[in-house]
C-alpha cells in the first residue's frame, strides 16, 4: 500500500517534470520577442541618447516659455510711449481724454497713476489726434517723472483745504449742520409779535371821547377785529 502511494507521487512528479511543451513554442516566443525588440527600437543601448535629446528639447521649450512670459510681464509694466497722453483728466466714470501729437514725438505722461489707452482716436484741428482713453487703476510706471510731469501733477492735484476737511466725518457733519442752520435762518418765516392796542402807542386824547378803560377787554381784543389793526382805527 505504501509502495502504491509513493509510486503515485512519483508518477505525478515525473509527469509534471516531463510535461511536453506545445509544438512551435520556441518559434512563437522567438517571433514575439523579436517583434517586441523592434518595437522598442533598433538598440536598447541607444535609448539613452534619445532620452537626452528629448530632455534637451523639453528644456529648451520650457526656457522659451519662461522668456516669453517674462517679456510679456515686463511689457505690461511699461506704458507704451507712442500712446502717452500729453494732458489728461480722469473723469468720474474713469474715462480720460488727451491730445497726442501726430508727429509721434515723445511726450510725458500727464497722469501719474497711469492710463490704459484703448485706441479710440479722433482727428482734431491742426493735425492733432484726439484720443479717448479709458483710465484704469494699475501700477504706477517704473520710471521717475520728469520735472515737467511733476509740475503737471502738482497743478492737477490741488489740495483744497475744505475738500480735505470734508474727508473727516465729524468735521463734515459739523459743516453740514452749520449750513443747514444758515439755510433755516435765511429762509425761515418772520415771527410777528402782537402789538398792544393802546398802551403801545398812546394816542392823543380826543376831546369828548372817553378814554377806553384798561381792563379785560384791552387784554383780550375782539375776535372780529384783526389783531394787528389798532383799536383806534374805527374812529378815523
Amino acid at each position, binding site marked *: *500500500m*505504501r509502495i502504491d*502511494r*509513493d509510486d*503515485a*507521487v512519483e*508518477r*505525478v*512528479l*515525473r*509527469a*509534471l*517534470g*516531463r*510535461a511536453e*511543451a*506545445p509544438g512551435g*513554442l*520556441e518559434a*512563437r*516566443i*522567438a517571433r*514575439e*520577442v*523579436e517583434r*517586441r*525588440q523592434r518595437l*522598442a527600437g*533598433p*538598440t*536598447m*543601448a*541607444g535609448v539613452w541618447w534619445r532620452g537626452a535629446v528629448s530632455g534637451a528639447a523639453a528644456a529648451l521649450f520650457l526656457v522659451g516659455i519662461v522668456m516669453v512670459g517674462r517679456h510679456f510681464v515686463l511689457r505690461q509694466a511699461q506704458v507704451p510711449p507712442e500712446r502717452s497722453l500729453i494732458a489728461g483728466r480722469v473723469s468720474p466714470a474713469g474715462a480720460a481724454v488727451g491730445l497726442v501729437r501726430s508727429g509721434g514725438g515723445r511726450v510725458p505722461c500727464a497722469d501719474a497713476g497711469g492710463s490704459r489707452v484703448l485706441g479710440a482716436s479722433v482727428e482734431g484741428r491742426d493735425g492733432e489726434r484726439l484720443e479717448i482713453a479709458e483710465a484704469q487703476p494699475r501700477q504706477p510706471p517704473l520710471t521717475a517723472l520728469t520735472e515737467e510731469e511733476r509740475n503737471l501733477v502738482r497743478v492737477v492735484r490741488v489740495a483744497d483745504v475744505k475738500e480735505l476737511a470734508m474727508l473727516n466725518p465729524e468735521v463734515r457733519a459739523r459743516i453740514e449742520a452749520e449750513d443747514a442752520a444758515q439755510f433755516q435762518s435765511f429762509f425761515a418765516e418772520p415771527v410777528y409779535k402782537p402789538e398792544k392796542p393802546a398802551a403801545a402807542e398812546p394816542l392823543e386824547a380826543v376831546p369828548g371821547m372817553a378814554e377806553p378803560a384798561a381792563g379785560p377787554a384791552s387784554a383780550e381784543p375782539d375776535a372780529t377785529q384783526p389783531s394787528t389793526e389798532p383799536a383806534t382805527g374805527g374812529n378815523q
Partner: protein
Amino acid sequence: MAAIGEQSLRWFSAERVEAEPGWTDVAALVRDYSGLLYRVAHSVLRNSAEAEDVVQDTFVRVLQHNGKLAGIVEIRPWLVRIAWNLALDRRRRIRPEQMDEAFAAGLAAGEMGVDLALAEAGRMKQVLEAIERLPGKEREALLLSAMEELSTAEIGKVLGRSESSVRSLLFRARTRLRERLGD
C-alpha cells in the same frame, strides 16, 4: 542623395550589428531554455496556455535586461527564478485545481481499460490535491525537484535557500504526502 542613402544604410547597418549580439543571446536562451521554463510554469499552473504566456513574459523580461546578460554567471537558476515568480504571480488569478482533473485523466490514459483508468485518474487527482495542500515552501521545493535538469543547489538558488534547507523541505514534503495519502 545617393550619399545620404548610403550614409543612412551604414547608420542602420551599424545599429543592426550593434543590436545583433543582444538579440542572438536572447534567441539562444529561447532555444535552450524554453522547454525547462515551460515545465516549471506548468508544474505551478497546470495549464498549457498560461504556462506559454509565462515563458514568453520571462523572455520579455530578459530582453529588458539584455545589457546585463553578460554579468550573470548562472543563467539557468536566474531564468527559472524569473519564470517561477511569474508563475506564482499568475497563479493568484487562476485556480490550478480546476485543471487537475484533465491533467490526472491525461496521466491515467493508456492501455488500461476505462474502469481502471478512471480509478487511476482519481488517485492522481488525490495526489495533486495533497500536493496543493502542502505548506508553501515544501510544495515549491517538491515541484522544482520534479525538474530533472535542476540540481538541489539550483533549486536552493531559485528559492533563496541553502542546499541543506532544500533537502529538509523535500524530506518533510514527502513525509507529509505519505501521511495524508494514507488516510
